[in-house]
């Protein structure tokens, strides 16, 4: 039962982790807007999320001193950051397009907040299901 709930949350957890990672990649693009020869990068979100679903989470190998102790698992983030196809590269070899990056940054932030809200809602639903019996 607990495992089933955990699996349901894993999708949201993966999505949230990927969103946070993408936010970081976009942040590095904006930060390097003036760096010569810097190439803008991004991840293919839907592809990476699909890939993360297939990845079997590794065991953390916690030491168990009693048969009642549970094992924990953790996934590793290995999303692939690709290079963005430049629309109008600068003469210094920089391919950061500030309009695109700002738009994607804002878009990703909204999606992150959506995922957090969705997760919060799932927690609330579970809480009310638990409390209904009391």
């Amino acid at each position, binding site marked *: 039962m607990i495992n089933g709930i955990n699996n349901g949350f894993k999708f949201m957890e993966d999505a949230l982790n990927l969103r946070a990672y993408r936010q*970081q990649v976009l*942040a590095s693009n904006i930060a390097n807007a003036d760096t010569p020869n810097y190439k803008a990068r991004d991840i293919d979100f839907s592809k990476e999320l699909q890939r993360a679903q297939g990845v079997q989470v590794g065991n953390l190998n916690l030491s168990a001193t009693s048969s009642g102790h549970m094992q924990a698992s953790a996934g590793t983030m290995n999303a692939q950051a690709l290079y963005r196809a430049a629309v109008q590269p600068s003469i210094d070899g920089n391919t950061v397009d500030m309009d695109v990056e700002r738009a994607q940054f804002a878009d990703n932030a909204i999606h992150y907040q959506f995922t957090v809200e969705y997760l919060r809602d799932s927690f609330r639903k579970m809480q009310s299901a638990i409390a209904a019996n009391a």
Partner: protein
Amino acid sequence: MSLSNVFSIAGSAMTAQSQRLNAVASNLANADSATSSTGQPYRAKQVVFSAMPLGGSGSGSAGVKVAGVIEDPSPMKRVYDPKHPLADAQGFVTMPNVNVVEEMVNMISASRSYQNNADMMNTAKTLLMKTLTLAQ
């Protein structure tokens, strides 16, 4: 945690941009300094940025670091002013190679980039705060 990396990325960029702003201020202030402690006229200083890849969980992204401050190699301005104490035999004074228009553009660009990075930090902070209050 990827979101906390945003702080170090944006922070490094803000440091770099403020250093660039410093160079601009120095160039504009010394636009007319015909001599300096070395006896030579002031040369414009330019800050060179380079990407600084983050290791570990920050792979695929990079902060900014200042690779160095170079002196502008462009030729110095020669101004005809025979009354000037530093004028040469032909009456020309060698003045700094500071291009005031270029420096003003640099200043605006640096300040906009700084604002962008400050904005980015704010967004990351909002997202982190939302995540921290997730189960409440």
